[in-house]
């Protein structure tokens, strides 16, 4: 399996990503396909995604008062704050669940791929050529991880159902949730039933609620979610990846932990992966403890600028926003919004970040 795909990959890598959709999809990495599709979708169909969804999804929402309580912020912020935030009358239509935490002074907005985790570049060969690593080893580890990511997404996070119903944030459909246990419900299959019907929306909302519950339950216990023997495979994969990437993830986790240890700082994730696979990645890379699920945003539907805007609406003008990434998109948006940008192009950049945090320079 690996060898054949590898040969395919050397062909694909040089033509990635523009012409990817012209190549027969069967042999191409599902992840690359999803990302390419997502990016073309973003470019060409952003305004028409409504035709995939029931039109109500596009409407603004007033936060649903009967939803489950928001997990406490660090420092034990009481729920009153959430109510308070709503009473302020601000239109937090795009950000229904998390309260505006105006005590936060620093918001670190992280990119996921190639900043915190090394994944995509393993598949495309970029990582191995840049850092002089065994390329076939890199690709095989990449494929292995990819399989685990989509396996988890499909089996435990309803990705089969939700793949066509992309959301930016886990709580975006929450107001359609009536709190019922719909676990007996049929899959959402878009081919049948009434699109946009109340029932359909409820099922959708229920799915996302379940995803949230699963994330919160297993974020510090991914092994429990995977069960044996997957758990052991996963641990081995993680070990081997750390060796290949010179402890890249370990370094990133250090910086994330430093930030989380401060009561007035938060970590936020903005990724161009679709939300469900992004959550799967976060879990499998052991980042669940670094990012509360409410702090994860997928930019596939609306682009990074829109996500950054949402985030700055959420935490307010008093906070300082630091953007951490490797790519041109986040850098451009950061400059545009006058947010300081910390570039991560090698592991040393992550070390320097930890260093700056330790010394209280950031």
């Amino acid at each position, binding site marked *: 399996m690996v060898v054949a795909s590898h040969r395919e990959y050397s062909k694909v890598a040089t033509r990635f990503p523009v012409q990817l959709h012209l190549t027969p999809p069967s042999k191409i990495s599902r992840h690359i396909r999803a990302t390419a599709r997502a990016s073309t979708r973003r470019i060409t169909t952003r305004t028409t995604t409504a035709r995939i969804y029931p039109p109500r999804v596009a409407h603004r929402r007033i936060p649903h008062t009967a939803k489950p309580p928001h997990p406490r912020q660090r420092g034990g912020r009481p729920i009153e704050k959430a109510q308070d935030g709503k009473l302020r009358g601000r239109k937090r239509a795009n950000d229904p669940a998390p309260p505006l935490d105006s005590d936060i002074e620093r918001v670190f907005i992280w990119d996921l791929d190639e900043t915190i985790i090394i994944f995509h570049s393993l598949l495309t060969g970029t990582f191995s050529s840049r850092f002089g690593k065994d390329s076939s080893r890199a690709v095989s580890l990449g494929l292995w991880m990819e399989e685990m990511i989509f396996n988890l997404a499909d089996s435990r996070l309803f990705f089969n159902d939700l793949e066509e119903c992309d959301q930016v944030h886990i709580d975006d459909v929450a107001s359609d949730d009536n709190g019922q246990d719909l676990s007996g419900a049929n899959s959402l299959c878009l081919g049948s039933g009434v699109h946009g019907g109340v029932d359909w929306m409820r099922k959708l909302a229920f799915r996302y609620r379940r995803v949230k519950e699963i994330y919160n339950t297993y974020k510090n216990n991914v092994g429990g979610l995977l069960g044996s023997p997957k758990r052991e495979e996963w641990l081995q994969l993680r070990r081997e990846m750390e060796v290949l990437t010179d402890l890249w993830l370990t370094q990133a986790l250090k910086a994330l932990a430093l930030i989380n240890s401060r009561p007035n700082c938060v970590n936020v994730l903005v990724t161009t992966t679709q939300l469900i696979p992004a959550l799967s990645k976060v879990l499998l890379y052991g980042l669940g403890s670094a990012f509360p699920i409410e702090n994860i945003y997928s930019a596939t539907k609306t682009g990074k600028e829109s996500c950054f805007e949402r985030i700055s609406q959420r935490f307010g003008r008093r906070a300082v926003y630091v953007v951490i990434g490797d790519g041109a998109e986040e850098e451009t948006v950061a400059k545009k919004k006058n947010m300081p940008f910390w570039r991560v192009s090698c592991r040393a950049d992550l070390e320097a970040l930890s260093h700056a945090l330790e010394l209280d*320079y950031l």
Partner: protein
Amino acid sequence: MSILPSFGFTQEQVACVCEVLQQGGNLERLGRFLWSLPACDHLHKNESVLKAKAVVAFHRGNFRELYKILESHQFSPHNHPKLQQLWLKAHYVEAEKLRGRPLGAVGKYRVRRKFPLPRTIWDGEETSYCFKEKSRGVLREWYTHNPYPSPREKRELAEATGLTTTQVSNWFKNRRQRDRAAEAKERENSENNGAGGNKQNQLSPLDGGKSLMSSSEDEFSPPQSPEPNSALLLQGSMSHPSASAYPLSGLGAPQPVHGMHGHAHQLQDSLLGPLTSSLVDLGS
């Protein structure tokens, strides 16, 4: 963007830290960070670093240092507003200290005139106006047709510009006055250039006393002291025509005017030729 191994941060990262701490208002930490930087020239010429140093200097009341930084490096336009604010605020504070009480609008204006923004933090172009460009355009357009709007017209203008009628009235009054002053200065300049500086003759009796004292104003910088030039004048030498106006201020009104008058005729005959008789009229 070089990595300094013993130090650990790239220049880009240093700039990022400077930005973060400035935006957060954490100036103590920023000062500490700047102090910890290695003495690398290239690093210290980085614009974010310089901006940070300026902010820290201001925060510490170290205004000499602040001015030095602002004047000695060319800053890019997107940083100009913030740095201009630092420059002005620092000068206001110093002026207030001298005066012993807070500065009003006029006082601040005088400070801005006395300490104009250095070109390193100003492109020499933008002035910030109180009224929006659109409003000012409407007023200017109207003025060219009629510089004396009636009360009703003023009300209409107020509505069109989003200003009050008082503001509109004041705008027109000031505009007329400034046009008059500009016109007077215009004539004066052309006369200076032609008549060889019989500036004195253009003053009406009412203005006389005041303008004679004008050398004390900042605006009209008095370049010479009275004595030497008046001596020249009385001896009939016209080698420094433009100087002749000022020295007379020290000498009392009637005598020198008379003396100048006589001179004017001689001047006219000898130097002017075709120049208008209006000059002679002014002298009489």
